[in-house]
C-alpha cells in the first residue's frame, strides 16, 4: 500500500500574525514558517502505518514557492520516503490545490491520501473534500483514529456531537485531526538522511491546471480591538446591561 500525504507551509502557530498596512494580506517577510500542524499528524500517521507493515511507501507532496521544499524535507526527516514539490508562486485556493493533487494522485497511484483537516492560515477546510469529489473516492474527515483493515479503513471522526466511527473503502481520502497522534521529532541523523532522499520538482503550469484565484479578495483587516471590561454592582445591573446594551438576552 502506498500513502500520499499533502503538507502545507504556513506561518508558525506561535507567531503573532500581522496584517499588511495596505490591507492586501498578512506580513510573511522574515516570519517563521512551519508545517501546518495537522499535516504533521497526517505524516506521523502515515509513517506509523508504514512502520506497522501495512504500507510500503509514504510520499509527501507540497504546493507552493521554492521555500515550501523545507516542509517536504521535514516530512522526509520524520519518515516519508519520497517528496514532491509542485511549484506555484502566489496565492492558491483549495480548488486549484485539489486539482493539482488529483494530477499527483493519477501519477503516483496511492491507495490512501492523508492531509490535515484544515490549514491554520486560511482555515478553509475544503481541500480534502474537493479532492474526494474530483477523484470520486470516499472521504473520512476529522480523523482522530485510523485503523487499517484488509481492504478498508475504520476511522473515528471528531464531530460536534462526539465521536463517530465509520468504515470506508480503499482508496480513500482521510483528513486528520490534531488528536490523531503525537508527531515525532525529527532526529539529527534523520535530517541528514532526508537531504539524500529523492525530491521531485514539478511546475504547476506543466500540469495544465489553471491556478488563478476564483475568489476576489477585497480587503484584509485586523479584527476590532476588544474594549476594556467593566464591573457591575449587582445581578440586576448585569441583566439590564445584557438586555439593553449588549442586546443578547
Amino acid at each position: 500500500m502506498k500513502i500520499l500525504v499533502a503538507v502545507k507551509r504556513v506561518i508558525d502557530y506561535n507567531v503573532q500574525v500581522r496584517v499588511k498596512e495596505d490591507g492586501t494580506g498578512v506580513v510573511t517577510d522574515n516570519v517563521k514558517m512551519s508545517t501546518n500542524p495537522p499535516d504533521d499528524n497526517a505524516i506521523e500517521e502515515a509513517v506509523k502505518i508504514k512502520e506497522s507493515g501495512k504500507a510500503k511507501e509514504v510520499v509527501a507532496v507540497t504546493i507552493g514557492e521554492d521555500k515550501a521544499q523545507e516542509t517536504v524535507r521535514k516530512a522526509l526527516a520524520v519518515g516519508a520516503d519520497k517528496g514532491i514539490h509542485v511549484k506555484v508562486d502566489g496565492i492558491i485556493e483549495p480548488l486549484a490545490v485539489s486539482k493539482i493533487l488529483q494530477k499527483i494522485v493519477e501519477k503516483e497511484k496511492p491507495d490512501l491520501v492523508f492531509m490535515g483537516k484544515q490549514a491554520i492560515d486560511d482555515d478553509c477546510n475544503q481541500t480534502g473534500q474537493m479532492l474526494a469529489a474530483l477523484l470520486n473516492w470516499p472521504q473520512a474527515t476529522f480523523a482522530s483514529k485510523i485503523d487499517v483493515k484488509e481492504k478498508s479503513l475504520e476511522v473515528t471522526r471528531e464531530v460536534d456531537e462526539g465521536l463517530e466511527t465509520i468504515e470506508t473503502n480503499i482508496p480513500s481520502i482521510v483528513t486528520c485531526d490534531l488528536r490523531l497522534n503525537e508527531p515525532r521529532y525529527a532526529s539529527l541523523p534523520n535530517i541528514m538522511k532526508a537531504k539524500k532522499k529523492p525530491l521531485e520538482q514539478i511546475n504547476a503550469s506543466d500540469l495544465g491546471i489553471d491556478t488563478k484565484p476564483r475568489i476576489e479578495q477585497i480587503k484584509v483587516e485586523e479584527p476590532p480591538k476588544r474594549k476594556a471590561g467593566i464591573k457591575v454592582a449587582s445581578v440586576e445591573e448585569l441583566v439590564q446591561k445584557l438586555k439593553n446594551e449588549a442586546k443578547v438576552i
Partner: protein
Amino acid sequence: MSREVMEYDVVIVGGGPSGLSTAIKLKQLNPDINVCLLEKASEIGAHILSGNVFETRALDELFPNWKELNTPIKTKVTKEKFLFLGKKNSISWPTWLLPKVQHNHNNYIISLANLCRWLAEQAENLGIEIFPGFSASEILYNKDNSVKGIATQDMGLDKDGNKKDSHEPGIELHAKVTVFAEGCRGHLGKQLIKKFELDKGKSPQQYGIGFKEIWEIDSNKHEEGLVMHTAGWPLDNNTYGGSFIYHADNKQIYLGYVIGLDYKNPYLSPFDEFQRFKTHPSIKKYLEGGKRIAYGARALIEGGIQSLPKMYMPGALLVGCDAGTLNMPKIKGSHTAMKSGMIAAETIDEYLKENKNLSIYEEKFKKSWVYKELYEARNVKPSFSWGLILGIIFTGIDQILFRGKLPFTLKHKHADHETLRPANEMKKIEYPKPDNIITFDKTSSVYLTGTNHTENQPVHLQLKNPNLPIEYTIDKYDEPAQRYCPVGVYEVQIENNINKFVINSQNCIHCKTCDIKEPSQNITWVTPEGGGGPKYGNM
C-alpha cells in the same frame, strides 16, 4: 545509556554572527573540512536580538564583494543625534563632541537576525551542515579532560524527566575542535570558564540588559538613516544605561534601551524604565500614531578587555560574546564577534593542518584590530561606576584627548549579582501604568515575541535551592526576579497567606538576565527542548 555519535572536524554551538563567521571562514580556508553548526532556535535568527548599527569591517574581510551579494545591509547611516534627557527637556549634544568610536557615518542600520539568515545561506552554500532546533545541552570530555564535543538535548521528556511517546534521545557530536558561540552568558561557555579557570586574574564580567521594540511609524516622522542615542532620564546618575532609536527601512524604527546589570536598587525594573523612557516628549513624538510590532530583550556583555576570559582550552575555543568581545563605548559587538570567529577559524585551520597549539588563538587575537579597539575602549565602562557625570567627563578625557591610550586600566570591582543593596535600604520606585498606546505591560509584550516551549517539559530555569526565594530573597531584596525578568517569568503569588515562588518558564525569551543578576546565583538557565523560546522576525 549509549547515544548515537556523529563525528565532525569542527562542531560550532550557536548560529549568531560569531559562529556563522567561524563556519564560513573555515570552509573558505579549507573546502574539505567537515563543519556542523547547531542552533537552539527554531530557525537561524529567531533568537537574535540586537540594535543594530553595523560596522562592516569584519564583513569586508569575510566577503570583500558583499555589496554584490544581495545582503540585507541596505540602510546607510545618514544623520546622527545624541540627546541628554532631563525629565521633560532634552539637550542635543553636538556629535563632534562625541568620542570618535561613537561616530557612525560609514555604518549601516540593519536587522542582525536578517544578517545571520543571510550568513547562514552563504554557509550552507559552502557545504556547512546547519541544524536549527537543536540545543547543545552538555559538554563531553575526553579522558585527558580535553573537550570532545557536545551532546544535544533529549526531546520529548515530561516535566518529571520521564520519556514521552515522542521521546527522541539526544546525540553526541564529536569534533577535533568544538567552538562555543552561544552569545552572552552561554550556559556551556559558563561551565567551561569555570572548569578551565579561563577568567583567572580577570575582572568579573559585566553585563547589561537590552530591550528592543520595532515600531512602524508615521512616514512624516520617519527619517531613514537617522541614528539617535540618549543618556540620562529616566535613570538616575548612578545607574548606567541609555537608549537607541534607529530609523530603518519600511517606515520602521528600532527602539531600545540598555541598562547595566550592576544597578543597586532591587526595586528597579529595567522593563518599566524602558517603557517610561518612551513617554519622554522627545521620544513620544516619534511614536504617536505609530504601532509597536515587535518586542524582545537579551543580556549583553559590557566588561570589555578586563573581563575577557582566556578564549582557548584543550579541544575548544570560545568566540564572540560567549567570551565577551562587545565594544561597549562603541555600542557594537557584531563586527568584533564576527572577527573573533574568523580568527578562531584561522587558528583551527593551522591546528588541524600544521598541528599548532590552539593557544595561538590568543596571539592572533592580540595582533588583531579587535584587540586594539577593545583595549582603547577599556576604561569607559568602569569610569561610569563613579556616576554619569564623572563618567562622561572622564570618558571625554580618555577617549577624545588620549584616544584610549591613558597608561592605566580601570578594573571592574564587583560581579553584577553582588551589587544589589537590601530592599529596606533603598527607595521603592513607582512606575506609571501602561497606556497600551506608547507603553505596555509584560504580558502583551511577551505575546509579540512568539515565544513558546513545548508544554510539560522539564523546567529549564533551575533553582539550586528551591526554598531560597521565599526564605531569603523575598525578605532581603523583595525578590527582584519579579522585576529584572523582561517577560514576567518569575512571580511571587500569595496562596492561603503563604508566599509561593512561581516560574512560568514557558514564557522565557532566553535573555539570561536571571542567571546573571540573581543575588545568590540561585537560578541556573539550562537549555530547554530545541526549537523553543522566542521566534523573533527581523530583530
